[in-house]
């Protein structure tokens, strides 16, 4: 007779890297569809191209390191990196920049530190920051959302722009690209324009930029799905969003004309994508519960500081990378007390 010795907990769930990554991809679907709807085919092309490059790069490096290729490629982590990268970059990014950014993310940031589970930095954000610093012109050429866009490019035109760099006849870059809402807010505030005047432009919706805020909503929905499926815990996203809202509202209360309303920060740029999908990266984020609260709140502080006083309009990538560096230290000082140890005992 065979008596299997089963220890508690007795409920079982298929918890593996592949399972986690699959749910992250599923949760990204609503936000991705929203982005494709508002910003055109370029987003989809970027997502496919980035995934292809990521998987190919992962396979090549694993081969080079004489590691088994299939399990690591099949766990979808490279695809998640690629998708997050593609959702962060402008829709008409030239193909070679996507290849460069994703290649750097997978080969240098992920595999040079030992591959999945060992990378101290979030690969997608490191690849994004590499491009943002190196190619600021290409990386800030965002399209306007669909309702403000008079020159919506078809699939063929989009492919031609991405892969050959030639725009359809009669168009130039200035005509089809537009600054992001965060960028606009920053530039106009620097010109000492009051927020009540800035908000008169048709660029704005209820909280953030028109179109952009809805993308944020769909990412929020995906994030809630991840919370419901317990792929991520609530600590990082909640502490990050609450902290950002509190700081932004505090400054808004101090000066309404130079600091936008708190929800503006939540629904602009990559905040919601970052809070649920990027900051919660299980490898590069904090692991202790208390540490995760500190980690999320610190990211929020950095986002607000860089957005308000820093050199770049959006800051999620920089904030996440900076806190990635601090994560081991935070973990060290927030280790939970082991049961039966500590408190009133001398070893």
């Amino acid at each position, binding site marked *: 007779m065979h008596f299997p010795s089963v220890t508690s907990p007795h409920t079982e769930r298929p918890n593996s890297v592949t399972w986690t990554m699959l749910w992250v991809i599923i949760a990204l679907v609503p936000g991705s569809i929203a982005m494709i709807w508002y910003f055109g085919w370029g987003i989809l092309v970027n997502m496919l191209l980035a995934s292809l490059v990521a998987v190919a790069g992962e396979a090549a490096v694993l081969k080079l390191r004489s590691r088994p290729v299939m399990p690591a490629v099949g766990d979808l982590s490279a695809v998640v990196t690629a998708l997050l990268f593609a959702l962060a970059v402008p829709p008409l990014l030239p193909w070679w920049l996507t290849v460069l950014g994703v290649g750097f993310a997978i080969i*240098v940031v992920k595999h040079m530190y030992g591959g999945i589970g060992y990378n101290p930095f979030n690969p997608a954000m490191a690849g994004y920051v590499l491009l943002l*610093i*190196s190619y600021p012109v290409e990386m800030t050429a965002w399209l306007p959302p669909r309702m403000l866009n008079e020159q919506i490019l078809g699939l063929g035109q989009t492919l031609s722009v991405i892969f050959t760099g030639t725009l359809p006849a009669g168009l130039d870059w200035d005509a089809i690209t537009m600054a992001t809402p965060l960028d606009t807010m920053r530039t106009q505030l620097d010109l000492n324009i009051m927020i009540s005047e800035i908000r008169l432009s048709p660029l704005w919706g209820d909280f953030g930029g028109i179109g952009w805020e809805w993308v944020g909503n769909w990412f929020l929905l995906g994030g809630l799905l991840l919370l419901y499926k317990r792929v991520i815990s609530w600590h990082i996203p909640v502490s990050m969003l609450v902290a950002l809202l509190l700081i932004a509202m505090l400054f808004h209360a101090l000066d309404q004309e130079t600091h936008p309303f708190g929800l503006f920060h939540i629904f602009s740029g990559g905040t919601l994508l970052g809070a649920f999908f990027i900051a919660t990266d299980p490898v590069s984020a904090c692991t202790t519960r208390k540490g995760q609260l500190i980690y999320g709140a610190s990211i929020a502080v950095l986002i607000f500081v860089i957005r308000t006083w820093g050199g770049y309009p959006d800051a999620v990538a920089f904030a996440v990378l900076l806190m990635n560096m601090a994560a081991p230290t935070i973990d060290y000082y927030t280790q939970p007390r082991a049961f039966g140890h500590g408190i009133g005992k001398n070893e």
Partner: protein
Amino acid sequence: MTDNPYVKLVKDGLWTNNQALVALLGLCPLLAVTNSAVNGLGLGIATTLVLTLSNGTVSLIRNLVRSEVRLPVFVLVIASFVTAVELSMNAWFHELYKILGIFIPLIVTNCAIIGRAEAYASKHSLGRSLLDGLAMGIGFTLVLVTLGALRELVGQGTLFDQAHLMFGEAAQGLRFSLGEDFKGMLMAILPPGAFIGLGFLIAIKNLIDKRLTRRQAATVREPLEQGTEAGTA
């Protein structure tokens, strides 16, 4: 393998104990100025000069200085040579001097220099110390130039840009360009590029070393198997 100590000194300086790639000394100037090959070469030559002269001087006075005060004396010696080099560069290579700026005076804080003075020159004769300084300096310069060239090529698409600052107008022809269409990766010229580039250089050096030891092991094993000249290793 030859046992000649002078050959070993040169080999140590250029490869085995390369100050930048193995000892990881003098990283501050190494990482800061190597955004172009010419900058790297300029600082490399200045450092080599200071390293050789200070090694020689330290070796000459090694028996006169009490060990309690040796470090301040070494620093004084090094600082004097750095000042001399700085003033000469200001006089003859003024443009390059302006580009390298604070990093010329900062050679005095390059730990590779005081490291060699303390570890080698204060214990060895004049000739050996001079050779050691020269070899270490050239090894350091080679890394500076390689890293500078690498970063310049990736970041700007050129090689030996502004070489005329150092070698006069005749050197304009040295400039190599990948073409105007090349969009450089700005990151390579910025500080992170220096760290990543140096990491790659160290990795390549270790890779070559690994290959060499493997090949050596193979050649040693062969004669052993054939039963001849077992003692040469």
